[in-house]
């Protein structure tokens, strides 16, 4: 039914997809898994026409649709949902289900505007169809609610309803269960099988919950670094060494670190609740409490959507918790704005580096020292220090940051943080998209920074940072599920958390 062959996509200096092929047969439910940044959503964009591949073709029902725009692919029968809440905001469920039937309206736009008699009948028919669909998905009572007012799980259900309303033969679901609780997930998995029967649709879904994928999918593809890593029946794939490595990284021998002065509570987090969306619709952190000890290296592990980035962003002051308290070095900073936390020495290296691409390396570094920008001596000294720590950056002072490689950008982002004289350094997924060798280089530098008197919190998905950690915490759906020394965190245990219990052969 769908045949993607040899698709490559690059934007800027990043190769998002490299020679990816995939096929979906009629009536199947196909899963696409892979760690954060693997290129899964890009692949969906290629299939649904939101991004043209640099090479390769997409064939749907035997027809080459590679050059068709997105709305024409929808007309051909490819429907999709979006990762970040893809509905018409501010409109009711009914309006959304009607809008989704754009292609099924059966009259031309001018006929509708002129109010020709036939269009009244057509509108009534669309309305009945929306009602029927809502009925089937248990949304009938909510038809006149604005979608923004709905709880997250229900919102996702409306999204699926809208995708089905488009009359698509192939529905692409982008993380349909993100933000759902365990009960909602189970219900969704059951509903999916029913949709397939009732609507005779074929489904391809991106999903981080590997056990759920294993439960509902007929066939699974695993992407990593933009490449198709493995494919196969779900159970086989879960024990595939490459897949395990993609999620966890290479198994590293963990050495026991002596804990010296480490111990004094440096940062205390108590009962943190953080949600996104209006009226706290999307819960991300639920009653999270933990502490960071002075001069330790703490690694925060968890899958995509676990709440890791939210945690560090809240610590940095970029997000406001609804409840809970944050105490830093004895002072309550819960209500302190982000800029003032920088003054206290809490510095965040954000996910995806976020360097200023149009500025040179030197200018990026100088912006890091914004609070002491008038102290020329301090700024110059800081730049010297960063270039000593990262020799890669030494002779690139004039180069635009946007033209650096991913690894160099990561170094620059850390260097920029160093310019602000951090006491607590929060590093969000430093290893994202980097090769293992570069990742280890970056972590070694962080070790060195740590020995110079900086407390370090690393956010990671895989095991790569474990060798550089004193303590490990694992987050799952916004809750702390494990806390212990890095030696207690073993490969097998983490694997079971991420990919589900191993299947006996």
């Amino acid at each position, binding site marked *: 039914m769908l045949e993607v062959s040899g698709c490559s996509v690059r934007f800027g200096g990043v190769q998002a997809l490299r020679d990816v092929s995939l096929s979906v047969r009629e009536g199947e439910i196909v899963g696409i898994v892979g760690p954060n940044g693997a290129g899964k959503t890009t692949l969906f964009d290629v299939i649904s026409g*939101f991004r043209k591949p640099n090479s390769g073709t997409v064939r749907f029902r035997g027809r080459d649709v590679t050059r068709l725009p997105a709305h024409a692919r929808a007309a051909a029968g490819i429907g999709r949902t979006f990762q970040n809440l893809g509905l*018409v905001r501010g409109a009711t469920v009914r309006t959304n289900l009607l809008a989704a039937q754009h292609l099924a309206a059966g009259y031309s*736009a001018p006929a*509708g*505007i*002129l109010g020709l008699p036939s269009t009244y009948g057509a509108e009534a028919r669309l309305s009945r169809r929306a009602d029927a669909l809502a009925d089937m998905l*248990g949304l009938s009572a*909510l038809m006149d*609610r604005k979608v923004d007012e709905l709880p997250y799980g229900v919102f996702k259900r409306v999204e699926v309803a809208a995708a089905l309303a488009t009359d698509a033969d192939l529905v692409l679901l982008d993380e349909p269960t993100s933000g759902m609780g365990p009960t909602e997930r189970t219900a969704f998995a059951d509903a999916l099988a029913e949709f397939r029967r009732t609507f005779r649709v074929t489904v391809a879904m991106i999903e981080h919950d590997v056990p759920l994928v294993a439960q509902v999918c007929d066939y699974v593809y695993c992407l990593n670094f933009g490449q198709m890593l493995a494919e196969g029946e779900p159970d086989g794939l879960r024990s595939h060494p490459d897949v395990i490595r993609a999620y966890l990284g290479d198994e590293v021998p963990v050495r026991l670190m002596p804990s010296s002065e480490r111990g004094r509570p440096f940062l205390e987090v108590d009962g943190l609740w953080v949600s996104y969306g209006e009226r706290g619709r999307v819960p991300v952190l639920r009653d999270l409490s933990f502490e960071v000890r002075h001069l330790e290296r703490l690694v925060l592990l968890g899958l995509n959507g676990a709440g890791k980035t939210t945690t560090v962003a809240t610590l940095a002051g970029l997000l406001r918790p609804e409840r809970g308290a944050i105490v830093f070095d004895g002072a309550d900073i819960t209500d302190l704005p982000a800029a003032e936390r920088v003054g206290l020495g809490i510095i965040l290296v954000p996910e995806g580096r976020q360097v200023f691409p149009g500025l040179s390396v030197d200018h990026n570094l100088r912006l890091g020292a914004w609070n002491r920008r008038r102290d020329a001596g301090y700024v110059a000294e800081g730049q010297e220090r960063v270039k000593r720590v990262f020799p890669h950056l030494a002779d690139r002072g004039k180069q635009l940051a946007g033209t650096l490689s991913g690894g160099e950008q990561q170094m620059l982002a850390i260097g920029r943080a160093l310019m602000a004289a951090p006491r607590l350094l929060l590093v969000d997924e430093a290893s994202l998209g980097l090769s293992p060798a570069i990742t280890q280089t970056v972590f070694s530098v962080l070790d060195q920074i740590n020995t110079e008197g900086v407390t370090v919190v690393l956010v990671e998905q895989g095991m790569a940072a474990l060798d550089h950690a004193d303590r490990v915490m694992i987050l799952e759906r916004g809750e702390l599920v494990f806390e212990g020394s890095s030696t207690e965190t073993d490969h097998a245990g983490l694997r079971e958390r991420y990919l589900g219990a191993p299947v006996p052969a």
Partner: protein
Amino acid sequence: MTTTLTGPDPVVAAPPAERTAGRPSAVGWAARGTVGAALFGLVFLFPLTRSGVDVNIYTEAVIYAIIGLSLNVLLGYAGQISLGHQAFVGVGAFTSAYMVTVHEQNFVAAVGIAVAVGAAQALILGVISLRISGLYFALVSLAYGAMAEDWLFNISSLTGGGTGQPAPKPSAFATDHRYYFLCLAFLALVLYLDWRLTSSKTGRALLALRSNPRVAESFGTSVKRYTLLAFVISGAFASLAGALLAHNTTRVVAGQFQFQLALLFVIMTVVGGLRSRVGVVVGSAFFALTGYFFAHLHLGSAVGALPLVPDLSPAIAPLVLGPLLLLFTLIRHPGGMAEFLDPFQRWLIRGRSARA
């Protein structure tokens, strides 16, 4: 908040918050009847008691309502800013005047051609809007308005140059009073088309693409095509209004379509309330009549009585009042006058929601 997350779908369990108002009492019916009759009297009977000079101004208010609806399609439905809307109106005015005076076409044909030409020029601007958007498109539309005023409307062979182009009223509607009712009929037509637009797939397509173009595309809506359609409809409505305006003043000159008019159009639409037909109509009429109120109620000299403040002439009153009301609207009542008018409308016509 926590309970809504862990509980079993409280939204589903709770009955939807429907307005469960019972049938209105006899007093309620009487009140509705009285208000309805008063509105009817104001729009249909009151003008009959006034002089032609006054009615001419009321007609302008009706035409402004069409202009407001036209801008509402672009600004409200499609989310595109246009700061050159006076040029859209002007193109319609000059086309119709040209057709009647130079080519001796009848009124209906002239207005029809004006609408077609207006739609075509809006389409061109629409194509540009697909290339550049936001602030830069606003600048382009602004420049287009200035270009039309200074150059396009001064091409003597088409517009009569400085003396302008005569635009007589159609013989069957030659008096100001009759012409007023003709314009009301056109307003009714535009209201009908706008209503069908919002309750058919075009309205939903525009709603989707304004909210999120990617979602719109995934529903099979061509963002490109529907953005252009919005321009075409807006251009057609604006040109219709322009043609009606031309025959109302019986002579069109370039000076009628100055830049401040574009500002006034945007202000009256926003203050009236984007995406609310009633709001836009009332807001537009209000601003069209501001000068008239100032002149008749001597508000200008009342302002002048304040120390250090000069008299406010009726001609510039809307442009002084407008920005103040715009600020007030954006800060306190982003829904515009419609925030008050829509509930009122729902009360008057019970059961039918004011917005599609």
